[in-house]
């Protein structure tokens, strides 16, 4: 079905490609890039550097303003994804593009369904999917509904979609941002196998360790331009980082020991019967002002439910939550905020921001009714704008103007808008869920510093993350969640290794109840 490729030459290439969006943002500037067939090429760069935009041009979702795109050695005009697909280009988007109520097999074949005379042959769809999964080593359950499977399986479904279209070039835009370490490993194994079968892979990631592990060569973008391409063997995380930001930077976080004071968050006997998802079975813990408590666990073991309960988005079935001595039962979300809670949700696209509203408006939604932004219930547009400009500057949000809708920001910059809003509210308890998901290393470091600052100015921080490195680097104390229960508590994280924590995450080891509740006041006598 594919259109012919040239005899030799690069699998995909860009020649002097520039892209200016309708709103005047020049996202890609005069980029020359060549990727030979059968290579895994990583593309790295800060948030907003133009990586996704460049990839969308290879996939026909955006058209270059000037310059040309080559696929299979020849210049091509890609009017839409359909023409890119016909040329053998497949793309897995940063935000997955699957139909939730369809089965995996249906999603895989969507657009090129097996069957004759306008009919779809569901059996053939399942068989095709199973065969592709078998050949590529990307295990999926063809008959499962997409909204009922793990993120990892959805990701594999996306790749199978491309394979079903006989892709020869596979673009993966931050495929690992939402995967557990094990799922990432499996993905890499499959990607390597595809490469060995002749596939050309373009791989975008902010995790430089992964880039070093998987790629053959790395191309670095900065502010829309390509700054260089180097062999992965010659690259170190540090050298890549300095190419990305244009100066030397250190990747370590300086963290003085915590000086915890009074208990800010007190959770007792917290149970939650989840209609869908993970239930919680009696959690007891404290977080004191001036400390960062990390919550580790494989995703889907109750972290999201816990965060949403604490933020007031769900109501617990039984148990109590106190913030600075105030019982939060019966408070609505605004009440939770008034009680001093700041919340950075993990799903920033759906819960964190109003995508079509401007950056400035998103930055004031929690404080628009108060001076200095409003007086007597009337907003001061000037004050709103000044407030936004200050935060945009402080948090290095890459945008031409505060009036830009959040939807037009790059993935990492959307995240920064939310973090800026939540941290600048100076909460007494900050719940931070996957704060650094999808942000570049500069921003990551910046957010680490902000979290430590928040702690040092007396906030209690509950840090929920799928990234153990991040948890160990930041947490003063660490809790482990498994199947909706606390299974471990480390009051001292110095010398703690990822491997050791991993054993608790997997349920190989477990702390007894005595250790989990030492020093907690008013713990009910409850069987776990």
């Amino acid at each position, binding site marked *: 079905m594919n259109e012919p490729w040239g005899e030799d030459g690069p699998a995909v290439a860009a020649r002097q490609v520039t892209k200016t969006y309708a709103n005047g943002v020049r996202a890609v500037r005069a980029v020359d890039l060549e990727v030979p067939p059968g290579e895994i090429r990583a593309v790295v760069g800060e948030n907003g550097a133009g990586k996704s935009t460049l990839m969308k041009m290879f996939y026909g979702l955006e058209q270059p303003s000037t310059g040309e795109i080559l696929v299979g050695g020849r210049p091509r005009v890609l009017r839409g994804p359909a023409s890119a697909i016909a040329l053998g280009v497949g*793309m897995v988007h940063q935000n997955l593009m*699957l139909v*939730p109520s369809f089965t995996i097999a249906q999603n895989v074949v*969507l*657009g090129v369904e097996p069957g004759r005379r306008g009919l779809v042959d569901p059996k053939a769809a399942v068989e095709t999917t199973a065969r592709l999964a078998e050949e590529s080593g990307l295990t999926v359950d063809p008959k499962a509904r997409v909204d009922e499977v793990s993120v990892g399986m959805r990701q594999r479904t996306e790749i199978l979609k491309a394979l079903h279209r006989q892709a020869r070039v596979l673009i993966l835009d931050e495929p690992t941002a939402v995967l557990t370490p094990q799922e990432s490993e499996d993905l890499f194994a499959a990607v390597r196998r595809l490469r060995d079968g002749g596939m050309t892979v373009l791989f975008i990631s902010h995790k430089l360790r992964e880039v070093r592990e998987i790629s053959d060569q790395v191309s670095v973008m900065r502010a829309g331009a390509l700054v260089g391409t180097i062999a992965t063997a010659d690259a170190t995380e540090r050298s890549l980082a300095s190419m990305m930001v244009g100066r030397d930077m250190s990747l370590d976080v300086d963290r003085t020991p915590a000086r915890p004071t009074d208990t800010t968050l007190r959770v007792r006997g917290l149970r939650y019967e989840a*209609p869908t*998802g993970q239930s919680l079975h009696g959690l007891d813990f404290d977080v004191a002002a001036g400390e960062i408590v990390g919550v580790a666990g494989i995703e889907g073991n109750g972290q999201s439910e816990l965060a949403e309960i604490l933020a007031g988005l769900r109501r617990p079935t039984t148990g109590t939550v106190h913030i600075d001595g105030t019982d939060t039962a019966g408070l*609505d979300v605004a009440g939770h905020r008034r009680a001093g809670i700041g919340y950075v949700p993990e799903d920033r696209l759906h819960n964190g921001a109003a995508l079509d509203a401007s950056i400035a408006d998103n930055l004031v939604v929690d404080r628009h009714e108060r001076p200095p932004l409003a007086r007597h219930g009337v907003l001061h547009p000037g004050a709103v704008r000044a407030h936004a400009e200050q935060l945009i500057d402080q948090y290095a949000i890459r945008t031409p103007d505060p009036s830009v809708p959040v939807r037009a920001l790059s993935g990492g910059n959307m995240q920064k808008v939310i973090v800026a809003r939540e941290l600048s509210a100076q909460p007494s308890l900050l719940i931070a869920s996957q704060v650094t998901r999808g942000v570049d290393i500069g921003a990551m470091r910046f957010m680490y510093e902000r979290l430590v600052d928040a702690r040092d100015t007396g906030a209690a921080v509950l840090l929920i993350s799928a990234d153990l490195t991040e948890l160990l680097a930041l947490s003063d104390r660490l809790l482990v969640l498994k199947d909706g229960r606390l299974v471990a508590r480390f009051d001292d994280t110095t010398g703690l290794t990822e491997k050791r924590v991993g054993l608790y995450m997997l349920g190989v080891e477990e702390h007894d109840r005595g250790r989990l509740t030492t020093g907690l006041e008013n713990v009910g006598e409850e069987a776990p």
Partner: protein
Amino acid sequence: MSSVLDVVLSSAFLAAALRIATPYLLAALGGLVAERAGISNIALEGQMLSAACTGALVAGYSGSVTVGALCGVAVATLLGVLLAALRLELGADAIIAGIGLNLLASGGTAYAVYSLLDDKGGTSGLKSGSLPTVTLPGVENVPVLGDVVSGQNMVTWLAFLAAPFVAWLFYRTRFGFHLRAVGEMPDAAASVGIAVRRVQYTGLALSGALAGLAGVFLSMGYVSFFVRDMTAGRGFIALAAVFLGGMRPWGVFLAALGFGAAEALAVQLGSLDVPPQLVSTIPYAMTLVALALYAWRRKRRGRVVPTAASL
């Protein structure tokens, strides 16, 4: 009370229920197709009304019932396409555009009838005839069944065939597959190269055609003339059936049938000693109760309903 039971179990009642359910079935399935394509067809009511009026007028003037019916369905189809165009080309809100089309249809049909026939009420002065009925040789003589199904209008037969047709379309054909994908996740559909707009236009045209058939039935089957605003909210009740039926063809079929039966009951009760004002509210009251039940069941089934965020 026993007289009510007698009424409900009589074959005359069942036959009436099928006849009365016909426009609900067709319009509801039309609404379903549009809903699943991602554009709510609030204009079902107006499409039915326009088709009813066009059908009666054209049949009356041309002398051909077939031509009248075809023209009626065609007008409703065009209104479906128009709604899609307003939504897709001009970015209008589908609800607002739909309400606009309904008002246009109500005023437009009244105006057309008045200017052609000089009659403010309807086309009863015009002899337009009605669509043929279908008698099944053999079945005709079977007790009860024969009385119920034989002699029904051909559109009633079409209405009952429409449910399996839509189910087949949705779950067996490539078009239906694309339609459902487009309605649920347009970005995902576009990213695999499906022509999203083309699918939506086709879906809305089909939706309009089904509503048109419902309208044609009203003025050329149910009765044989057009009366101003004769749809009487059926398009909206059909829309309720779409949601009540869980947006699935057979669910919608059952819901629409239920509304038809309720109305048939109201009609029959009218002949008994029950205040007619009360009786005529039955279909509408049932719609409300059904929607409330539907919402309650959905909530109970445990879709996470987060407490309202009030920042």
